[in-house]
């Protein structure tokens, strides 16, 4: 399936006295993946630390091994090949591996460049990509303040006032957090600090990075570090109003939909239960999952309204259909929910158009094979 498959041949174990040839990144990925899946923290950490001592660059280890293993964790989860618990445990072990690497004496760099604040968007809990960027920038001589997962705009701004960094690097993986990301970008720019954004939330490509007025975008940590090495991002101009970026927000549809999400979910849930007899046999946990799924649909609808981009919603539906399919849940169950939601929101022209486009996409597209969604 991929060069990181566990079935890839591994090097023969080192015998005492003879030094084994240093592992390649691919071999190392396979080894770390195996250890992470076995929840064998010391093996995972041992493998990367040994590779560092054998001369592999710390940046390559962070990005070509750990980040790669982490991406695979996400793919395997989407394809229902590992559980949520395994995903979390793997992430925690990867995080510890990052710590072990960066504490190692051969991965120390004295700061020679400016100061950067690295943070995740509020509501964003996937902190590892931001952590990796922080460590890569540190290795490249930046003075880095890593603020961690889910940083609220006020906390971020307070940090900027106190430390006056040259740049904020903002990470986000969830498109539903784009409104929060926009708030953070605007707030940072208002205090005169340019913002570089990255992460799955801002794409495909740099689409939403540009839309939300970020000063820079990078597809990955290495590209971000390269971009910063080329020179400072231009300082942003003051007196810019965020509303100018998104004139369609004037119709208030985003605000109203986002604010009434619980009521919308409640109402659609009730009607769905009436329309769909199978739901009556659902367990409490299953009912809750259904409500959560509806909640996600409304969140993504709200994000599509915010960005004015129906592709955001359609992409989410395709992804969800793939995930459901991998778990043996018929994705056809999404369509009645969209229909009921459309009826609830019939006075909202943009919302109904987005919902229609989403339903059409579900009908048109054959389900994407599970596991390729990323």
């Amino acid at each position, binding site marked *: 399936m991929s060069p990181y498959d566990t079935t890839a041949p591994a090097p023969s174990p080192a015998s005492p006295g003879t030094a084994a040839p240093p592992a390649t990144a691919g071999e190392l990925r396979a080894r770390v993946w195996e250890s992470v899946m076995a929840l064998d923290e010391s093996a995972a950490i041992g493998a990367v630390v040994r590779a560092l001592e054998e001369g592999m660059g710390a940046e390559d280890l962070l990005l070509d091994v750990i980040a790669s293993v982490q991406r695979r964790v996400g793919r395997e989860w989407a394809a229902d090949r590992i559980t949520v618990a395994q995903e979390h445990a793997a992430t925690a072990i990867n995080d510890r591996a990052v710590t072990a690497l960066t504490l190692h004496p051969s991965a120390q760099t004295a700061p020679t460049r400016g100061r950067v604040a690295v943070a995740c968007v509020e509501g964003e809990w996937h902190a590892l990509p931001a952590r990796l960027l922080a460590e890569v920038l540190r290795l490249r001589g930046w003075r880095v303040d890593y603020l961690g997962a889910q940083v609220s705009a006020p906390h971020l701004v307070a940090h900027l006032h106190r430390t006056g960094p040259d740049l904020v690097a903002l990470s986000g993986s969830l498109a539903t957090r784009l409104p929060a990301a926009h708030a953070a970008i605007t707030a940072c720019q208002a205090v005169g600090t340019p913002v570089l954004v990255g992460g799955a939330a801002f794409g495909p490509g740099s689409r939403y990075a540009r839309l939300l007025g970020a000063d820079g975008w990078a597809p990955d940590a290495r590209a971000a570090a390269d971009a910063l090495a080329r020179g400072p991002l231009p300082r942003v101009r003051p007196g810019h109003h965020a509303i100018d970026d998104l004139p369609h927000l004037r119709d208030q549809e985003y605000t109203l939909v986002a*604010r009434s*999400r*619980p*009521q919308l979910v409640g109402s659609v849930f009730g009607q769905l239960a009436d329309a769909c007899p199978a739901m009556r046999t659902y367990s409490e946990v299953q009912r809750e999952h259904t409500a959560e799924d509806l909640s996600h649909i409304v969140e993504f609808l709200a994000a599509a309204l915010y960005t004015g981009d129906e592709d955001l919603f359609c992409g989410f539906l395709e992804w969800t259909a793939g995930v459901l399919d991998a778990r043996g849940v018929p994705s056809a169950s999404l369509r009645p929910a969209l229909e009921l939601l459309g009826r609830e929101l019939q006075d909202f022209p943009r919302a109904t158009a987005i919902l229609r486009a989403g339903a059409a996409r579900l009908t048109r597209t054959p389900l994407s094979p599970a596991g390729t969604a990323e």
Partner: protein
Amino acid sequence: MTSTPSAPFGLTYSAAQDTVRVELSGDLDHLHADLLLAAVDEVLTVHAGLGHLRLDCAGLSAVDSSGLAALLMVRRRTGGAGADLHLDARTVQLDRLLEVTGTLEYLTAPAARPQARRRAGRGPARGGPADENQSAAPPSGVAEPHV
């Protein structure tokens, strides 16, 4: 998003012989705790020598830590006035709160009778070895009740 605003808190009295009944309704929280205390102070002033203060809790929707602190103060005041406090028609949530915080016995113990005071100070009447929170390993410890 919906936040849950505090439900309005209400009190209604009725007095008969040596008993005053107060019906509580709404949220007993940090916004309303002082109202209860003021009302109880007034009751104790007006009805000197009161035997029983019955708080009807059926209408209480939520009690937070400030609400519990107010109930504890009410108990101090009724105790000082020699009146018994009764918490009638407690909701499941209120019972749970009083249970977890270990205050149920204290709050409802009769006032100013020496043997009752001692009882209020006693630990939960659980003797003997308590279960161990242990799965596979052989149990070795016991719970330690204290006075």
